[in-house]
């Protein structure tokens, strides 16, 4: 049976990641960074990857990784979500890594696992597992075309690119033009990637690699969404205990208490769904259903939590200075990432035999 709890080791991992983020990823500097030339925090990435070995959790030890599981990765993502940390963890250490694992691309896998290089799958962030996606043309052995909506491409050293011939190609970032797109989510920016005769090395078939990568991305995104929802709820509750209007704490008004209690219920429910998805990715048991259930549920909770945070903070929640907007933007962008809730519900219709008319 699925283990929906956190082990002691997982809680210990959470504690060290949270400590690091508390010290090196405060809200004010995340906000300041969003409008700088370097939207990704590569020094934080180095601490997570180099210092703590977290980029290699999904990679077997024999291939240069930590040989851990999706359960530990999920815990890391919860914490990164709580901090809206601008690091390419989900894109490089999960999605690109899963694609490389499928292709058996050993050398590059070890480089990603060590965190020395950042890899990104060149598929739009909005694509659901199993859905159609764009590919680039092959002409005279080089790659041509343009892909958009590529998350964290600006931080990537190497791209994994689907070609129209059905292959997956490794392309050095230096061989393409990466143009940042002004993105709703300031902490996971998208980019347009232009291929004008870029050299690529074919490492395997794109279809199974992309499907596996996006399924893991979708399933573990639920843990990031849990982190976003957990932080926004906790912070809103804290604020409403302090904030006084009408000579009493605002959090004492029943209209608000009920909304927060309702939100708490959604967050604990998401925790169960996210743990279930992480465990199913680990065991391979009932994975498609577990991932689809988590993704069909998570977006509404994270968005609801972030929207309530903005509303219940009142005027301060509407300011650029307060971090609530970072969470709202991340939650809303996450609701599109790796397929919307509706797309995952449609997948479930087939998986659990509740078919459309």
């Amino acid at each position, binding site marked *: 049976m699925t283990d929906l709890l956190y082990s002691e080791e997982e809680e210990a991992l959470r504690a060290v990641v949270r400590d690091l983020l508390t010290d090196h990823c405060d809200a004010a500097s995340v906000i300041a960074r969003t409008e700088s030339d370097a939207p990704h925090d590569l020094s934080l990435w180095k601490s997570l990857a180099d210092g703590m070995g977290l980029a290699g959790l999904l990679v077997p030890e024999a291939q240069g990784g930590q040989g851990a599981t999706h359960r530990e990765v999920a815990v890391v993502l919860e914490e990164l979500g709580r901090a809206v940390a601008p690091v390419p963890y989900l894109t490089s250490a999960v999605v690109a890594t899963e694609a490389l694992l499928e292709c058996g691309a050993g050398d590059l896998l070890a480089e990603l696992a060590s965190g020395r290089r950042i890899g990104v799958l060149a598929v739009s962030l909005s694509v659901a597992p199993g859905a159609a996606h764009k590919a680039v043309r092959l002409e005279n052995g080089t790659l041509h075309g343009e892909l958009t909506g590529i998350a964290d491409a600006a931080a990537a050293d190497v791209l994994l690119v689907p070609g129209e011939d059905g292959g997956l190609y490794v392309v050095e970032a230096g061989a393409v033009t990466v143009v940042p797109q002004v993105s709703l989510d300031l902490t996971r920016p998208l980019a347009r990637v232009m291929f004008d005769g870029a050299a690529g090395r074919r490492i395997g078939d794109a279809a199974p690699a992309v499907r596996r990568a996006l399924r893991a991305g979708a399933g573990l995104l639920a843990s990031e969404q849990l982190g976003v929802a957990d932080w926004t709820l906790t912070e809103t509750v804290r604020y409403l*205990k302090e904030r006084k209007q009408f000579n009493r704490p605002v959090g*004492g008004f*029943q209209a608000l*208490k009920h909304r927060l209690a*309702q939100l708490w219920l959604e967050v604990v*429910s998401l925790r169960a769904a996210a743990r279930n998805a992480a465990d199913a990715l680990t065991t391979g048991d009932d994975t498609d259903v577990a991932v689809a259930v988590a993704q069909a549920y998570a977006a509404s909770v994270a968005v609801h939590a972030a929207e309530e945070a903005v509303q219940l903070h009142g005027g301060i929640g509407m300011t650029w200075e307060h971090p609530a907007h970072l969470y709202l933007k991340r939650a809303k962008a996450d609701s599109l990432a790796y397929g919307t809730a509706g797309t995952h519900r449609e997948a479930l219709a087939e998986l659990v035999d509740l078919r459309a008319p």
Partner: protein
Amino acid sequence: MTIDAPELRRLTGELLTAHPPLETDRLDFLKARFDAGLAWVHYPEGLGGLGAPRALQAVVDAELEAAGAPDNDPRRIGIGLGMAAPTILKYGTEEQKQQFLRPLWVGEEVWCQLFSEPGAGSDLAALGTRAVRESGGGWIVNGQKVWTSSAHLARWAILIARTDPDVPKHAGITYFVCDMTDPGVEVRPLRQITGEAEFNEVFLTDVRIPDAHRLGEVGDGWRVAQTTLMNERVSIGGMRIPREGGMIGPISQTWRERPELRTHDLHQRLLKLWVEAEVARLSGERLRQQLVAGQPGHEGSGMKLSFARLNQEISGLEVELRGEEGLLYDDWTMRRPELVDFTGRDAGYRYLRSKGNSIEGGTSEVLLNIVAERVLGLPAEPRTDKDVAWKDLAR
């Protein structure tokens, strides 16, 4: 010495040898099981248990089930098992435990609960049923109770009544065991929106209760009642439910079997509720795993909220899904069912019965307050009645 699983298997084997279930009268077998300490192994010796860890009950149950032994039909005597028994165990005198627990467990004596009143629902502590002490030491009780399931079948009731109206409401309550065969007890069926009467109104007119049937100290009834109510919530959680267990099961089956009923709108709504039901099931499973691991979380407070809402929404959708049949109802005949099954009968019944899920056992509004205050630590509701004598409260 602590009792372990092999020892329990040995004792269960002895019971089965001495009282072969297929050749033994059902009640005799249950009594023998109680006397062997295998009824509820975590209870003390002599009271149906062996002082063993509660989790080991599953060992005994599995052995007995495999041998085809009868059980005590726990659903029929749920109030006795889940609410009266733990309270008697904790607060009862030795005589009370000896008198009540054995017939309770074997099902010879059904119990009911006389707590709620027409004027005391969410604010249970405001109850007005009066118990007045006689010169001989016994009590005379007058008042009205409501929403009492099994009252017409019950031999005994757990009862809370006001013994001191001059102190604040929580302080003036005493907890009793009430004899339901007393001539002053009148039970009337309370017909509900489903057409049947699952519950009763109970009118108490000069009912006599000996002081020996008081549970706990005079004036301490509210604290004693907390044990009862806490156990009510524990017995609601705790079961492992398979996927599509509960209200989502019948509608999913109908969807699969009756493609002619499908529309796009219903499909979207069904999928959304299916996901929410699956997530609620996983939340319940997570809570169960937390309890087994000895890390009780707060999630229990939320489970009832989720299930109430989902039961209502799913059954409401199911009525719509059935099209013209949704305009019909299976039977409005007034009946008094012995067992309640939320997922029983047809969609219309499920829709109407589930309306009670957000009222019974704590309204959803009160549960949200509890979550907000006890889990999130938000300020408590203003308590204007805290220091006011019960007799001076507005009503």
